[in-house]
């Protein structure tokens, strides 16, 4: 490199800072990464790809849809709304007064017909409508520390307004959720035989083992002037009170079911089950509904046609699209389109 013209950085014997860099090339180092030439897969949506994707989705979705639909069909579900029926005819005008009147005995009898054979276990749920367990005020109104540890019974932060009794001693379990515990009860008889409802194992195991203490006992619960829902057995530790544990697991949506118990007995079609229930829980003031549900379960859970139908729809749609695209691709080959049609 002979710098013969105007360049000032010509040959110089200087030892200054400026003369040295001439020799260190600033040439960037070559690597596939810095030159952005990394090996890459560059898929484009060619007809082959599009059609195969659609076909593949169809092939996967349709069987799943059929399986899901079959599973759902095998589930037998009995749903009975009883909140409107279990009110004496003279009280229908003021349901709230009825439910709030402790002196009235609220026992009610319902007869349910089994539509199909139901294999055990049969799950018993209660379903509430228009009940906002997911309201922020409600969700937060509990104290996990207190539920877990007997030493932390005094921890009632977040539990307003069901925090302490009037004299200041803490309520265990505190908070609105526990306070509004569901308190309807159901008894089932088939013919004249009592169907026993097993209430063990209706809650999540992790809740029992890790969230509710086995040495935590209810204290001052439902002792206030305004009673909410059910009371608890003062001699049972919280982790044994599974109704509470189930209730405390807040529902996601305003319509929800909660597990009440399991019946370990097969039922035959057209069996008539007599339910003796106590209609205690107030859903009248907020226009909620109460339903009793008896259901078997499949590998997909309860009766739910949606998934099966949705899978079938999408699968069918994909098959249709695969055919449609094949036809279009055959009828109109691309190259001509590119050169002439869009120009």
């Amino acid at each position: 490199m002979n710098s013969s013209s105007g360049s000032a950085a010509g040959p110089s014997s200087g030892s200054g800072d400026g003369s040295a860099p001439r020799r260190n090339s600033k040439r960037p180092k070559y690597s596939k990464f810095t030159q952005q030439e990394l090996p890459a897969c560059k898929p484009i949506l060619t007809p082959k790809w599009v059609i195969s994707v659609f076909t593949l989705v169809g092939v996967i979705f349709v069987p799943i849809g059929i399986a899901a639909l079959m599973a759902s069909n095998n589930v037998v579900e009995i749903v009975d709304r009883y909140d409107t029926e279990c009110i004496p005819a003279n009280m229908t005008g003021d349901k709230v007064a009825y439910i709030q009147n402790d002196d009235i005995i609220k026992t009610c009898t319902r007869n349910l017909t089994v539509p199909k054979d139901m294999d055990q276990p049969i799950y018993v749920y209660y379903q509430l409508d228009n009940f906002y367990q997911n309201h922020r005020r409600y969700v937060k109104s509990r104290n996990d520390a207190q539920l877990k540890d007997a030493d932390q019974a005094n921890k009632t932060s977040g539990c307003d307004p069901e925090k302490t009794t009037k004299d200041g001693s803490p309520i265990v379990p505190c908070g609105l959720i526990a306070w509004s515990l569901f308190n309807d009860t159901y008894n089932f008889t088939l013919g004249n035989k009592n169907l026993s409802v097993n209430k063990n194992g209706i809650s999540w195991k992790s809740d029992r083992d890790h969230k509710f203490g086995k040495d935590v006992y209810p204290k001052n619960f439902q002792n206030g002037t305004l009673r909410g829902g059910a009371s608890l057995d003062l001699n049972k530790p919280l982790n044994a009170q599974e109704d509470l544990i189930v209730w405390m697991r807040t529902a996601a949506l305003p319509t929800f079911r909660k597990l009440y118990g399991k019946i370990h007995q097969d039922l035959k079609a057209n069996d008539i089950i007599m339910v003796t229930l106590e209609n205690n829980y107030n859903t009248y003031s907020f226009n909620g509904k109460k339903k009793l549900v008896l259901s078997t379960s499949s590998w997909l859970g309860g009766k739910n046609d949606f998934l099966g139908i949705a899978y079938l729809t999408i699968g069918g749609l994909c098959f249709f699209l695969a055919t449609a695209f094949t036809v279009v691709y055959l009828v109109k080959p691309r190259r001509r389109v590119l050169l002439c049609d869009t120009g």
Partner: protein
Amino acid sequence: MARGTRRKLHFSKLYSFVCGRSKFEVDHSQIGGPGFSRVAYANAPDCSEAGNLNYGSNYVSTTKYTLATFFPKSLFEQFRRVANLYFLFTAFLSFTSLAPYSAVSIIIPLIVVIGATMLKEAIEDWRRYRQDIKVNNRKVELYHGSSTFGFTEWKNLRVGDIVKVEKDNFFPADLVMLSSSYEDGICYVETMNLDGETNLKLKQSLEVTSGLQADSSFQNFKMIIKCEDPNASLYTFVGTMEYEDQEYPLSPQQLLLRDSKLRNTDYIYGVVVFTGRDTKVMQNAMNPPSKRSKIEMKMDKLIYLLLFSLVVVSSVGSVVFGIISSDDLQVGKVKRWYFRPDDSSIYYDPKRAAVAAILHFLTAIMLYSYFIPISLYVSIEIVKVLQSIFINQDIQMYHEESNKPARARTSNLNEELGQVATILSDKTGTLTCNSMEFIKCSIAGIAYGHGFTEVERAIARRKGSLSIENEQSKENHEQAKPAIKGYNFDDARIINGNWVYEPHSDIIRMFFRLLAICHTAIPEVDEETGKISYEAESPDEAAFVIAARELGFEFYQRTQTSISIHELDPVSCKHVEKSYKLLNVLEFNSSRKRMSVVVQDDEGKLLLFSKGADSVMFEKLGKGGRGFENKTKEHMHEYADAGLRTLVLAYRRLDEEEYKSFNKRFMAAKNSITTDRDEKIEEVADSIERNLILLGATAVEDKLQNGGMKQIIITLDGPEIIHLEKDGNKEAIAKVSRDSVLYQINEGKKLLSSSNTESFALVIDGRSLAYALEDDAKNLFLQLAVGCASVICCRSSPKQKALVTRLVKAGSGKVTLAIGDGANDVGMLQEADIGVGISGAEGMQAVMASDIAISQFRFLERLLLVHGHWCYRRISLMICYFFYKNLTFGLTLFLYEAYSSFSGQPAYDDWYMSLYNVAFTSLPAIALGVFDQDVSARFCLKFPMLYQEGVQNLLFSWLQILSWMFSGVCNGLTIFFFCTTALQHRAFRKGGEVIDLEVLGATMYTCVIWVVNCQMALSISYFTLIQHMVIWGGIALWYLFLLAYGAITPTLSTSAFMVFVEGLAPTPAYWIITLFVVIATLLPCFIYLAVQMRFFPMHHNMIQWMRFDGHADDPEYCQVVRQRSVRPTTVGVSARVDATVSQLARKVHDMVHLPP
């Protein structure tokens, strides 16, 4: 004897013009007054008076922050952004019980995001700091007293110190020069770092101090320097020096500036007057104006839009919430008794529903903060920095010869590079290499030198005469590289000493002698090879000296008073040594347009050599000197047509008397200290530069840079040229010119509108431009200019350049790019949306003002077509994607809130939400922003039409943004409703368990993560290992997180405890729902893409198809595609696209017509 005379003649006299340039405008009596208060006690920095002055140390800090100010200052910078301020606001609110989530979960992402940006700032500043330390610890020799100098670090210098700087070292501070190794106290200085000029400048000390040439001279040395206060003007300096009870005025001539370098001088002594921050160079240091890209500005609008919609959504929610809440408790009737509305905190109190609603509004603002991507800014910053690294690292934009890679000086404008609609280029300096080649000359009326200039070749090529092309290509082959830089002369009559046999050999001899003598270049002999190279003020001067050398007149030595050349003696045909005594140099300047030297040859004859522009030189010829005037003029016209720079050479003999009287007047003029000093000198010089005898003319080619041809071709050979040439003589009334310009503009517009098939070039000169840029004409002018394919403004001033830039920028509203390499382009570079500086020979000024520096004009093509296009695509896609993914996520939150009676309950766990932007979805977006390529670099260059995507802003149009947002909304809706319907209230697994808040949240969240990441996979068409890792890794990370989070104690994970292990993983429904929701949500998008790719392909899709089909290398096919997409946009699009296309077309043409 010669030695004796040389001693007497001071070199300063020769450089009187250079030295005398400084104007004595400022009265030296001002010194000591306001603005001129600086005092330096030389050699006594410790004395009490000096101590009181308390000037700063020589420590220079260029860092933005100090340790103490870093946090407050950089935090402040961060929170100037609306989005960040909003997040800070929500972070503060999150500590109150208004917050729908825990404070930590919002604070941590904010800290991560802000911290990442601050870390970047800190690293950048740390680099600057390291650089500072290096500079501040450079060593300089400082006078210690008792006649000794010792090394000390720069930072220790104080005002008044005496320092000794040796050859090739930088000056540590602004110094007043006392003396140098030369007896008359001159020294050469290279000011590359200051103004970018590479030529050497001459400085000279005052005569009184020039004798202090030894270390010992400074024993008992005392001096007081009083001067102006620190200021940024590099070319002025006013001060006085009090030395030995005498006062002497100081001028810029004595001032040596920090960061300039001592050259060709062994050492100098100087007194420090300005240190550190006070030095001129530091006073000049300023950051380039910060520009923001159009995309980012649009993005800001988008964020405002989102903030606005957030407020709307929140207030709707709040109103509904207020109504529902107040409904809970009416005249003592409790509705939703389980909330205890009778005993409620203010947040939910039905009795004060309005207040509760307002408070809820704040909650909602916090909850919906997920509509706004918190990590967007920091991601964009990271992406841009990485993109700049790629630009800097591009090996194909590295110029071997100048050892310069491309350098993105700011990373703000990467994507703007992909949207340039108008390019404003500085013609001469930029397109040319700024290296001149001596190619032709006319001596005594005979033209010498053959060989085509590039312009001639281009014209020939355009006209399609293949013969010339062939010849030229052959020629190219032969002289693939000119053996000598700056010299490309070939004529058997002249070279190898053959000129002796030419008819006018004496004139030829004088001609070359003139070339060897009449200049200010300095020879440098390479000690190893003995080869001589020259340092000249301008490249054409270097070309002359080189030409003279090659033709046998080797200039090899310049002493202070003489010029020595090896000259071919026509009689003996041997090289003889000749020495000329240099008597006067009459410098070149732009008004004189000529340069002369007066020399005395060894026979004692006095000669005046003169060279200059034809406009002035022909007037100066004497009666006897016009022998070949017409012939010469004719040749010069030819040269000018061929695009060469010409100069006229002439000489005269002087007799002793005449010279003496001239010299006396010249000295008098030079020594006068009045304002009209320069005029006086000019007048005297003028008096002697007359009655010249014409020798001939030279033609120098300003070499065009490789690939820089395109625009020139268009000018010279455009299909139609509207020539707005206005030959205004100086006295012509402005009105007439103005009317004429207006008329011509209108005529041009008519012409333009009458034909719409051809593209036009517009040529306008500086003077007409002045009128065209006036307020009444400027819009018309703009319309005309925009209608033309290219516009050439010749002879325009720097200010006009900037004005044109502003006009185009404001008028067209499109992105403008200015490219230039000289100091005169600075205004233009700063005015344009993007300034690209060429780090060529003209110095660093343009580069310092630019946003991106490249070393060759031709790299602009790659910079725009490849990097610009990629960056534009990446950034716009990334921003769209960010908004998309946040809308999807935010919408599920909103819908869920609607299902919880607008209470502000989030569907997801706090940590799911806060990690959404930071962990699970941000890396794929960043990878998209850094690595995505729609088509490879080769195709970007091959199909410049692809660039139209950026110019027309197809990828970041409101349509595009809104469709992404629409897609986000749709995806949010489908995810929410499919999930809730599929899960519902029924048992969701074999064990009869029903879903709860946690299960629904985790399932929905899984779907969101899958959908947005798969959407990313659908949107890009370039998968390297990195893409796979971040996209699928993001999803895997979510599952891992779910596992880890669920495994820790429920005290921390609360409801998320074991949700995956116990609740989700063993449940078939969870997996089936995920699969269904993801496929169903993405299916519409997939169909859209398949249809679009197939039936309505965009430019890049077409090229992808071509690559796929393997047609990309079929030239005819490419041509068809290219033309089809280019044709509608030819007119009105920048000339570059046009030119590139024509160039490519030519290439294709060549390819097609190549003989098999």
